[in-house]
């Protein structure tokens, strides 16, 4: 049996038919072809599938698509606007915070959710906010440096 749901993904409204056993991750990747969101463990441990729902990071592999009904979902695809990378994406590039890249979308979205609330977040807050994502390349130092730099820049701009 299929269920009809309305939801917003990256500022676009959709009406989709979903099976109850479909996860939000499967809906994003298979139905909307937004493959920036990754599937790692599928069990909520690795965090590669993190997307923002109402601005908050969640493991999309552990959320049913039917539970996204009426919600606003943001994936990594929404961060680049008019050919301009998001400051976090730019910062990841500049700091070399990407090796294999599999955790990068989740790292950037987790960081975005933090910086949207506290643009001047310090290292401890950043570590806590990113603690739901594993980076098997071990790029944590550069990832944290990239988030610190993006936050700082944004903070300074806000003060101007």
């Amino acid at each position, binding site marked *: 049996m299929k269920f009809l749901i309305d939801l917003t993904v990256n500022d676009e409204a959709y009406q989709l038919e979903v099976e*109850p*056993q479909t996860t939000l991750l499967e809906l994003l990747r298979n139905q909307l072809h937004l493959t920036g969101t990754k*599937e790692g463990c*599928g069990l909520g441990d690795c965090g590669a599938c993190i997307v923002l*729902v109402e601005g*908050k*990071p969640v493991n999309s*592999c552990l959320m049913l698509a039917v539970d996204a009904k009426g919600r606003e979902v943001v994936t990594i695809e929404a961060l680049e606007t008019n050919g301009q990378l998001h400051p976090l994406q730019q910062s990841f590039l500049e700091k070399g915070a990407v090796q294999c890249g599999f955790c990068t979308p989740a790292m950037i979205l987790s960081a975005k959710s933090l910086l949207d609330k506290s643009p001047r977040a310090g290292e401890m807050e950043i570590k806590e906010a990113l*603690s739901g994502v594993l980076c098997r390349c071990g790029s944590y130092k550069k990832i944290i440096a990239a988030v610190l730099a993006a936050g700082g820049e944004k903070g300074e701009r806000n003060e101007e």
Partner: protein
Amino acid sequence: MTNLYYEYPESLSVMKRLKPFAYFEPATLAEASKILIDQGSRAYLLAGGTDLLVRMKRGEIDLSALVNLKGIDGMNRIELDAETGLQIGALTTISSLEQSSLVRSAYPVLAEAAGILGSPPIRNLATLGGNIGRASPASDLAPALMVLMTRLLIDGPEGKKEFPLESIFSRPGKTTLNPGEVITSFFVPKMVVHSGAAYVRLGRRGGMDCALVGVAVLLNLSAKSGDVAEARIALASVAPVPIRARKAEAELLSGPLTEERIQKAATAAALESMPISDMRASASYRKEMVKVSTRRAIEQARTLAGEGNNK
């Protein structure tokens, strides 16, 4: 041709896709209760899903129907009554609990325990009702709620019921709830003045970890003498279900909080614990750590209760 790909051993294989199930979105508790009874023992309630979906994917549970509670209004509210206490809806997420200014100011131990569970994205999905209804021996919320004398509000075929939180646990993963019964909310009585509560959780790493030992302690110190007027100690991860360490509590009661009494209480708590050995730690190590964690939790609770005295 040789297969160049590594094949995942069958025993470790995980189904990343969920098998089909009948799905229900009741609008009222009465409806949810009826569906649960009609569907039988293979029907499960869905709250946050962070534990249920994992067990479904691992094939650990044989589920035929899922009853999603999120269509029922008003089950995710946190309301403080300054006279009586705090009412927390069962669908309140762990992160709302962690971030709620009401919880942080009136029951800091609860916000602290909430902030340790899983990871931030897990906490954004997981709910308090799910954490307790799962009846995991390793619940991070249960010890803190138990020392706060939390009561559970249940709705079911026989109407509303209320009982102490600790009596919901029957054995690992099993509650004492009857068919068709649903946890609707938690009532945390107002903390008395001059009391302090602390939660000490020992894990192997800083985040995304399951507790090896979890100890919550609440102390109420007499304003005049500083003697212990009330002591409550709860343990998680070291028994089939979260337990109160009542002999340890008795060691602290009616007298000054001396080093000797703290040590005696810590030893009593270790004796009351019944840990198992598993991949995370041995039973003997866990017992020893109950002693250490209980002592630390008592010391922290004493400081917090003392701070209350200075106000």
